């Protein structure tokens, strides 16, 4: 063949406006998944302060928990986790061949439910934080 024009990846991503529900679900699931692995590693790292003694551990945790940013990040983490769980459930059902016709509705439902759960738990997450 003679020459041809390869439009490359840049152009693909500039198409995000044209993505459909299933594609958004895929992107969000990917993103949340990566955040969760990231968190898993950090989480274990923080917890391993326990190896250097009880006091070190308690101090680190309490110092962290008293920071507003950390609390806010935790809310973010909750959002990420809840979405990943709900959409994960959606995907599990899809794998079982259940509710394929409603795949877009179930994605929207996961989004909304995530929102609701996260908002409802904000007070719990922010309680007792010293500002």
């Amino acid at each position: 063949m003679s020459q041809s024009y390869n439009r490359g990846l840049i152009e693909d991503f500039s198409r995000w406006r044209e993505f459909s529900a299933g594609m958004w679900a895929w992107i969000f699931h990917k993103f949340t998944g990566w955040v969760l692995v990231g968190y898993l590693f950090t989480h274990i790292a923080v917890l391993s302060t326990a190896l250097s003694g009880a006091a070190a551990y308690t101090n680190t945790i309490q110092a962290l928990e008293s920071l507003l940013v950390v609390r806010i990040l935790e809310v973010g983490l909750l959002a990420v986790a809840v979405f990943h769980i709900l959409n994960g459930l959606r995907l599990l059902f899809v794998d079982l061949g259940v509710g394929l016709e409603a795949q877009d509705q179930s994605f929207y439902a996961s989004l909304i439910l995530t929102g609701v759960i996260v908002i409802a738990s904000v007070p719990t997450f922010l309680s007792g934080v010293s500002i």
Partner: protein
Amino acid sequence: MSTQVPEQVEDESSAESVSPGKQKRDQKKRERAQRIQEQREAEAAEKARSEDDTYHLKVFRYDPEVPEKQEPRFDDFYVPYKQGMTVLDALMWARDHYDSSLTFRHSCRQAICGSDALFVNGSQRLGCKTQLSDLAEPVRIEPLPHADVVKDLVVDMEHFYDQMEAVEPYFQTNSLPDGELDEQRQTRENREKVKMSTRCIWCSACMSSCNIAAGDNEYLGPAAINKAYRFAMDEREGEDMKQRRLEILEQEHGVWRCQTQFSCTEVCPKDIPLTEHIQELKREAIKNNLKFW
């Protein structure tokens, strides 16, 4: 109106060794042809202007050989609307009346040959099966994403064909009836089960819409997997063949790559439930392997 490639300068020397009489006649003929051509273009423009009901198309242009088109660009065309006009009709009109170099594949005009899958207003559709009246203006028409552009709206289909042919896309069985007039029996239910999967017209819209296929060139893609489904689920092939088909599908770049994005299912002009078929095959593959534990 259109952004036609500028006319090239005429080359006078080509008419050298012809008799003067013929030259004159030729000249006259050419003038007449020229006149008709101009008249036609003027009429087209007139028609487009006089009708308020015109559609504005923005069409992707590229040609590796024409200097003006080497850098991809969008051209504007204004096409007079007629009841029932499709995107393909509009493209043909633009080609026949404004710019004969506007290039796209098309043949059947009835959604069966699968040649004119295009990227229209941000989604993969068959030009011939898309009514202009369903689209917002300007109608943006591009070649299929995730494929190399050969020229204008024509993309290179080789990779798609390779994937389709990678799944042994032909009927195989070890138990044909002996007589050449004896058919194999098939239940209605079974035929019903494979029915949708046999409707594929190889348009490649699904493949173009799938982000995984875009990222992983070796991924078989929804159409090829669907093709394999068509045979794997056909009871006439027999269990041993199904086994063989599942082995093909189970390879690293087979069914497991699908991330259930559903865009393939959404764009398929033949309404084939592709995601469902892929998912069913994943389960079949797992079941098949669990049997031997």
